């Protein structure tokens, strides 16, 4: 098995783990972590592409994704904190007051 295939498989597996975590967890912080894993899976793929093509543009994109992930974590954690302040049980399914 070539190293590219290995990285591809790792990336796909990480993405699947992240997606499953985001879908199955009901704790806001756990969901955020799962989303981070999905982002990292995508980043791994971008870095692989950068290696194969040998350009700097894809590596720059990977850095942008890192910044994006940090920004997302800031907003997400702030939301989670606000959520904890209002509720005793940290369950995202409870936050459905403005449905429909």
């Amino acid at each position: 098995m070539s190293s590219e295939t290995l990285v591809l498989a790792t990336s796909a597996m990480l993405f699947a783990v992240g997606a499953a975590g985001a879908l199955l967890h009901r704790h806001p912080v756990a969901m955020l972590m799962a989303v981070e894993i999905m982002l990292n899976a995508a980043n791994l793929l971008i870095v692989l592409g950068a290696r194969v093509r040998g350009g700097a543009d894809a590596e720059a994109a990977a850095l942008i994704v890192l910044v994006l992930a940090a920004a997302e974590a800031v907003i997400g954690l702030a939301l989670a904190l606000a959520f904890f302040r209002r509720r005793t049980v940290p369950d995202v399914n409870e936050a459905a007051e403005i449905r429909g």
Partner: protein
Amino acid sequence: MSELLAWAWIFALPGLVLTASGIPKDQKRAGYASLPGPVVLLVIAAIAFAQGTEASVTYLNWLPFLADGAFRSLADPLSALLLAILGFVASLVYLYSLGYMADDPGKRRFFVYLDLFVASMATLVLAGNLAVLLIGWTGVGISSFLLISFWRDKPGTLGAGLQALAANAIGDGALLLAASIVPSGCGALVTLHTAECTRNPGGAEFLALLLFIAAAAKSAQGPLYFWLPNAMAGPTPISALIHAATMVAAGVYLLVRTHALLALAPNTMLAIAAVGVATALAASVASYFQANFKKGIAYSTVAQLGYMFAAVGVGAPFAALFHLFTHAAFKALLFLAAGIVIHGAAGREGLLDLRGLGRFFPYSRWGFLIGSLALIGMPLITAGSYSKDSIIEAGLEKQPIVGWLLLGGVILTGLYIGRLFSIVYLAPANDPHTVHRDPDIERPMNWALVPLMVGAVAFGWLGSYLVGHLGDTAGEIEHVPSLINLSLPGLAAFALGAIGFAIAWWLSQRAPAQAAAPASADTSYGAATWVRAIADAGYAVSSGLARVQSGVLPRYAFGSLLAVAAIVLVRVSLR
């Protein structure tokens, strides 16, 4: 000047921004910053029309998802004429509103909405293709809603505004469908009739039908008439500008603009004529049974728009345009004259309350008389006779049944307008002490009436001038209106109108109370039932769709994941 006129949709925007940001500061002078907009529009449009030049502005790929997504605005003689009408009536309505809204705390908001309307209407008229037309079309609908519901605390105004919005939405939907089904590259209004543009599944007939539905919704024709009488819940200057002179005429304008396409669709033409005649007659009857002064005039507007539709339907677009032109002057005159009496009676609109009060307002009385005479078509000295005769003569010539029905309908016109005039302006006043008069407030309103009186008399003489400058933009013009219009159908129409007027006067003398508040007031033609049915259906659909928004986060996440998977699958399988 046409190059400048092609940007006319901008003219009202500086006033909008200034008034909205509170300039001038003094509440008494609120709205002054908005005044120059329509005047500039009138002057530039009139000069451009006189010069007869043509100019257009095009920005390609502005809305790339539409067949013709360019931003096209077209200032040709036809749009210049419409913009001149808009500028003329709007200038006077702005002036009038300074008096009418003088004591209203929401005066600033009122002028901001007015500016929004003028800008949207200018966009509509200048539209060179369906995409831009749709923007103007929706814009005037929204400003109409805002202005109908202007006094939002008054019961019923919000409902009336929503009705207007709903009826307009039907028209917007038809127009959007039309913009979507035309083949790629088509959408310019003046080339819709070309062979490559009518190559859609339904052909020219279907495209024309969609435009007709859009026009009928805007102009309150056929089953879509219901919103216009209720739109009278808004302030009277709005009734004059939007719901009599300009916006409701947009439907007629669209049909005149696309007359070449309609000529390819004989069945749709027949439907337009039939709907126009039926609406003209039914609305005339309904007007006679109104207990509310403004609603009586509103049904008259529906009826007159019916005359214009009938003219388009028999293939005489210029006659329709000519009537649009004169009607704008005399119907705005009728509304503004009525508004002076209503303002004097502290906003009451019931005919029983207003009985006899008109005699205290000489400008209003003369204005309403001239407007009424123009409406029933007094030959030689009123504008209405020239344009209405053109319609009736075209009808008699091309579709005799249509012509005869329209001719007979004039007696109904005389009946309803004679009734309103006799009750408000001729009858003795019940209680003169209910009239409040304030010369300072009345002055701008009276001034605004004078140019409209001149217009209601003189616009008819401009027929041959219009023909000379319009070129072929309003279709082939077979009969050029002469300066002396003493034709047999015209005289017959006036005689019928005068008879109706006299009968109405006699009836109002004999049984004054019954005339002012008729017992059989249900003239809704069952509109409430089917409007309710549509509203219920819409509610059922939206409450079903609302269930998708459960608020449960994992479900949303699962939906997004499914969508991503679907997109990937489609991409992969298409490769």
